[in-house]
């Protein structure tokens, strides 16, 4: 069982990530994106954007690109130490405040909000929320992730 008392309320150290145009284009290609706003600078500018925007789920990728040391689901020393073989993604949500664009530098902070068990501990649930802020302090997005750990 995950040590609830130790981990609930843990806030990760801030992680700084760059939103890179090359990765946004790669993401568009890997997802079969057909809207050129997401892979062509000229199309993005024609649509009124200063650069290629990060698509709605790319915030999760930014989070994955720079795992936290403190409170990471998988980290065995400073995090929850969940075995990758046992994890499933249960839910994912996002709330948006401003678009992020290629060239932006974001600071990411993740909080472990809750950990609870069902079926006598056969299933454990980990709720984490992550904030994405621009250099000037603008809050771009908040993400909420529910991970399911299969102990059975």
């Amino acid at each position: 069982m995950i040590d609830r008392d130790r981990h609930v309320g843990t806030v990760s150290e801030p992680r700084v990530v760059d939103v890179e145009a090359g990765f946004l284009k790669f993401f568009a290609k890997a997802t079969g994106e057909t809207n050129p706003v997401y892979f062509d600078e000229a199309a993005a500018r024609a649509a009124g954007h200063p650069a290629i925007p990060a698509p709605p789920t790319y915030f999760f990728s930014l989070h994955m690109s720079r795992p936290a040391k403190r409170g990471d689901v998988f980290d065995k020393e400073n995090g929850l130490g969940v075995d990758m073989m046992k994890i499933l993604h249960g839910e994912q949500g996002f709330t948006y405040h401003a678009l992020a664009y290629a060239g932006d530098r974001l600071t990411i902070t993740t909080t472990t909000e809750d950990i609870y068990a069902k079926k006598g501990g056969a299933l454990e649930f980990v709720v984490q929320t992550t904030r994405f802020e621009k250099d000037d302090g603008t809050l771009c997005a908040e993400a909420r992730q529910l991970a399911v750990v299969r102990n059975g």
Partner: protein
Amino acid sequence: MVEVGDTLPELVRGPIDRATLALFAGASHDYVPLHIDSDFAKAAGMDDVFAHGMLSMAYLAQMLTHWAPQERLRRWNVRFTAITPLHATVTCRGEITGIFEEAGERLARVRIGSWTDKEVQTLDGEAVVALA
């Protein structure tokens, strides 16, 4: 004029093959081996590698942003209700279930989901999108 009961244009992607998963793992920085390493997936008790839930969520995002520009997407949430197996084709669907006002804005509530070609629902969720 958007009305309750309207449906969004469907978005179909796939079939998902091993190359799709390898590319998505690299592009999305998600290296969990359940999705890219058959030996690991089988050791974890799965039949084979299966698609990242976030791949289908990215497809749902495309359905939403092709319908309304991304700057109008206020919030959304999905539950991953079944895994998406290799070789599946993914169909994304959405339907307006409500129109309401919040903070001086007219918003649409959209029930969204994705299904495999065997009509297994893999994602089930809701999005809130500002109306122009």
